[in-house]
């Protein structure tokens, strides 16, 4: 599904990722943890194709193909989805309008019939339930005046609509209170399937109590310094990241 091999990424003249290697199989859920500034969002953005991140070495293959040659919108159409750590507001653009445009772009790529306004409304109503959002969200501007938690839920709604093959969730848990966290985690769990892989980027172990990953990786100094099962997250919580930093240096 996803094969990242020896990935090197620079922002400006600073190298952020220094030989990151990671493989995610079909239907697997992987978590990446790491201290602030370790490059988690950088990895997420590089996967989605954000401009400004220069890949200076290594490769990313998605479903066996080179992902890095694709434009961001092409990646999305092929099934890569990024739930942003900081979703932006797009003032004046109706949430439904954007969701529908996005879904139809993806459907068109898949050779499926585009949905008209009525069909889309039917379609989206079911997805709203997944994130326990009510319909009034649809008529608001994209993220316009949304609370932090609402923005994160809106990201999961978009994911539910687009039905990606690979979903990268960048700190979707941060800034959520416990109820919102549960809703988001429930949503993600409902969307787990044998054909869908997840990469959960998180700072805290808390999220992983709700979404139990197949593997946990620790990112430090631009590479994966340790991988393990769900128990690794707990260990990290107790011992802190410095424990691993030392290990990496040794």
């Amino acid at each position, binding site marked *: 599904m996803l094969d990242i091999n020896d990935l090197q990424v620079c922002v400006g003249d600073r190298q952020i990722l220094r030989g990151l290697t990671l493989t995610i199989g079909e239907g697997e859920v992987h978590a990446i943890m790491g201290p602030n500034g370790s490059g988690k969002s950088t990895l997420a953005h590089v996967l*989605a*194709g*954000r*401009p400004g991140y220069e890949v200076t070495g290594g490769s990313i293959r998605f479903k066996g193909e080179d992902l890095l040659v694709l*434009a*961001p*919108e092409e*990646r*999305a*159409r092929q099934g890569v*989805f*990024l739930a*942003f750590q900081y*979703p*932006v507001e*797009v*003032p*004046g*653009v109706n949430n439904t*309008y*954007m969701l529908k*445009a*996005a*879904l139809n*772009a*993806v459907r068109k*790529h898949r050779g499926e019939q585009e949905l008209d306004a009525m069909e889309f409304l039917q379609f989206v109503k079911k997805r709203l339930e997944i994130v326990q959002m009510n319909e009034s969200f649809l008529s608001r*501007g*994209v993220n316009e005046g949304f609370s932090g938690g609402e923005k994160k839920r809106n990201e999961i709604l*978009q994911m539910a609509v*687009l039905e990606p093959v690979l979903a990268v969730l960048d700190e979707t848990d941060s800034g959520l209170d416990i109820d919102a966290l549960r809703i988001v985690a429930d949503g993600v769990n409902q969307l787990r399937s044998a054909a869908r892989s997840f990469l959960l980027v998180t700072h805290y172990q808390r999220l992983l109590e709700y979404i139990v990953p197949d593997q946990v990786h620790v990112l430090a100094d631009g590479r994966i310094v340790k991988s393990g099962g769900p128990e690794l997250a707990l260990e990290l919580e107790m011992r802190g990241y410095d424990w691993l930093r030392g290990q990496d240096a040794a």
Partner: protein
Amino acid sequence: MASDNQHIEDLVRKDYAAGFFTELETDTVAPGLSEEVIRFISAKKQEPEWLLEWRLAAYREWLRMTPPNWARVKHAPIDFQAISYYSAPKSRKDAPKSLDEVDPKLLETYAKLGIPLREQEMLAGVAVDAVFDSVSVATTFKDRLAKAGVIFCSFSEAVREYPELVRQYLGTVVPVGDNYYAALNSAVFTDGSFCFVPKGVRCPMELSTYFRINAANTGQFERTLIIAEAGSHVSYLEGCTAPRRDENQLHAAVVELVALDDARIKYSTVQNWYPGDAEGRGGIYNFVTKRGECRGARSSISWTQVETGSAITWKYPSCVLRGDDSVGEFYSVALTNHRQQADTGTKMIHLGRNTRSTIISKGISAGHGQNAYRGLVRIAATAAGARNHTQCDSLLLGSRCGAHTLPCIEVRNPSAKVEHEATTSRISEDQLFYCQSRGIGTEDAVNMIVNGFCREVFRELPMEFAVEAQKLLGVSLEGAVG
């Protein structure tokens, strides 16, 4: 709404009655402007003496004036003696015989806007001389309006049929010597539209469809006069989203609106005259004077404009708020791409007590486009309790374009409240990437963001036109980002 549109399209497709366009005799006066030419125009149109005198007075004023030079627009001096002020429609021999002979680029644009074929032919100036159905669209609409007591006709017809009404109101909002181009228009205007809504009548339809067809016939110097009597309502839409072939470079129209007690006039414009090519060759100079007077108490006038066309736009639809508690509104989207220049805005002149005005201006600049908002809010000493809110936002696409905000506020009454907000921003990379990361292509993403930026204005447009205006924005922005 969809069925409404269909209905309109059907009507448009069906009926182009012979005589719908007033065919003029084939005489054309030689280029140049003089009293003689004005006498000729007036005689051709069989106008009453007072109107000829009115034109001549305007002409004499014009001779004493100089073209305005304060706008942020650049163009070579206009040779007014090189223009022919009265010409019959072009000979059909010169017109394209069918759409096959029309510039494919233009056709492409029509297709994108979803303009029906028949209308495309008309817009492209194809010589369609097939005999159309005898039932004319115009007649159908006119019947409905006549039943309600609304007069809606060409300006020439109004001069013939309702000379007293015309005489009573013409030039009372925009005096003949108001400005250089208004004076010129007053001297030489050939036609335009006239609308009179009697006391207490709500106009039974948007005056748009009719106009849209009729508008293909508008001349270079167009004159419009709308009068809403006490308690009446009218919504008027001028223009068309489709770019229209036009040989005249200079357009200098005048629009006057009069609202009496409790009357409401809503005037919406979608302007998409030929903007010139990417290098700035050709294109229309759109130098327009539009002004409405809220003459009566509690009256309101609302201007909404979407300006995407013309090489140069010079236009300030304004409101004179004379009646107590009257309301003026101005909602504007002005887009300049390539080498287009726009200097546009509004004047809100508060004279009456508790008068209120709202200004929302959205300027979008792309390519080498230059966009200036120029606004005046004047609160006279008599306007106790007056309020104005102005919001003026500029959006830049690319680094070679420009946006300028030139607001002017004069307050002579201490009880007035005036608020002004202005922002200038570039289209945000973050927003673009966000849309792209959802599968939306760059161009669509730009359109979406720009349309969102304009939303407060678009929602003021009549429904069917709001949809068209959105498409139009997309077409006008093509090649703006890449």
